[in-house]
């Protein structure tokens, strides 16, 4: 049985048998009864170590849990799959320490963000249910409290050396290239990462990655441009696409990213 480590495989469940899967803080349970899939989920304390357990049969549902969803999915040519995806909103990344970039220089930061687990029809089909592997915290990003948008928030040690990057099975890494195009020093205390415009990739050696993102910043004017590369860093070698970007509209993708960058 596949646990979403690679490209999604059809979900083949024995009749009336509960299955459990653990990823990050998430406990996911699913059972098939005819053409109906019963699902429920639970979360562990966020301070606990991350969970990882492939989808496997369990004797019964834990007592304190109730069935939260019943997904009717008739047996047709399409199959039901469990797969991974990036968050449905941009992430505000707060580096553990302020990052300062000298004029006319560049820096690469590696940040990781939690993944979402999706139950959906095969081949990029309809999303029937999805759950974050870690319950995300919301944050507001904008000029003030009246103009802006909601995003998720995460803290990151944001290493700048590729070899120092830590891999987690429930998180995806993004290489952020920050380019100071101006003549002044810039200080970055938080960054908005437009995950909804990025795809999710996997390599056996490097875990989950998104396409790399480059920010070109002119501190004098405050102008920032963002460019999403076509693939994750070259150091990873061959990568396999797990999920395409949630947002397909490139112009709106660019606009959203521009609006969200750096608050």
């Amino acid at each position: 049985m596949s646990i979403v480590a690679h490209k999604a495989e059809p979900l083949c469940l024995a009749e009336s048998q509960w299955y459990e899967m653990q990823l990050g803080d998430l406990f996911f349970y699913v059972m098939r009864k005819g053409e109906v899939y019963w699902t429920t989920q639970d979360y562990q304390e966020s301070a606990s170590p991350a969970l990882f357990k492939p989808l496997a049969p369990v004797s019964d549902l834990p007592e304190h849990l109730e069935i939260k969803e019943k997904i009717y999915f008739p047996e047709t040519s399409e199959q039901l799959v469990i797969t991974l995806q990036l968050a449905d909103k941009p992430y505000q990344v707060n580096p553990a320490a302020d990052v300062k970039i000298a004029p006319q220089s560049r820096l690469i930061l590696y940040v990781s963000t939690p993944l979402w687990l999706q139950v959906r029809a095969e081949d990029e089909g309809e999303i029937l249910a999805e759950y974050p592997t870690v319950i995300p915290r919301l944050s507001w990003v904008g000029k003030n409290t009246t103009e802006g948008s909601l995003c998720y928030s995460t803290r990151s040690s944001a290493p700048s050396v590729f070899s120092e990057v830590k891999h987690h099975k429930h998180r995806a890494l993004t290489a952020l290239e920050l380019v100071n195009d101006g003549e002044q020093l810039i200080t970055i205390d938080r960054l908005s990462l437009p995950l909804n415009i990025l795809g999710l990739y996997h390599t056996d050696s490097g875990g989950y990655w998104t396409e790399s993102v480059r920010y070109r910043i002119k501190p004098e004017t405050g102008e920032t441009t963002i460019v999403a590369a076509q693939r994750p860093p070259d150091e990873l070698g061959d990568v396999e696409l797990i999920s395409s970007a949630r947002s397909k509209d490139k112009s709106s993708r660019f606009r959203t990213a521009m609006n969200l960058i750096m608050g």
Partner: protein
Amino acid sequence: MPEVIATIGIAEWFRAALLVSIGFIVAKLASRFFRSVTENKLSTHHRLLGSMLIFYILFLIFFLSGLKQLGFSMSVLLGAAGVLSVAVGFASQTSASNLISGLFLIAEKPFEIGDVLKLDEYTGEVISIDLISIKLRTFDNVMIRVPNETLIKTTFTNLSRFPIRRVDLVIGIAYNEDIEQARQLLLKLASDHQRALEHPEPFCIVTQFNASSVDLQLSVWVLRTELKDAKSELLIAAKNALDEAGIEIPYPHTSLYIGKHTQPLPIVMVNDNVQSKVITQEPDK
């Protein structure tokens, strides 16, 4: 006038009625078409306004055409309309005032359909914006009609204009408690609370020395839609956290101190033989 009407043939009446009926149907269909076409493009407010305008303009055109079929001259009608408007204006000052106020409200757009307004003692969701009045639905499911003129004249609060709101909780602690400890405790529970936004960050300040307590204000930013739940959950969490830390939330009472507040109040018993005895009372735990 009755003679004029008598000269109109049945065929003209029929044609006029047909035009007005067709006009009504066409105007209704056009306004519905506009609403369906703009479903995901315009706000509910603008869709309603646009569909109303389309309906009234189209219907008016057909209505005037119907009158023309009956032999009415448009130039005479326009002249009569001028005189009529003065008469109608006097007769319907309030309605006209509401109508004009409605136009100002539409132009200013201080709220939209679906917004929650607080007006005097009423709080409710805007369910319709009409030419003369708006309709509010209160949370106990009562409809309130508010004339547009009232809205122009009075102050009202739009509670759902912005997507995030700040919850301000005032929590009193006893005078002998450690203020900084209580402040840090409240800040931590706010930061850990799932509904609290990470940014803008929560803050906690001392607001006043009250009669029985030192008042702290804990301010937490949350989603507008989660305001009530967040407020209730934060209050419960604050009570539990302060109880757990042994920090007293005082009820209104008066403490009498003589000298240092840590020393108990001495009670002096005086008897007839001029003997005095001092009884020390244990301070309240």
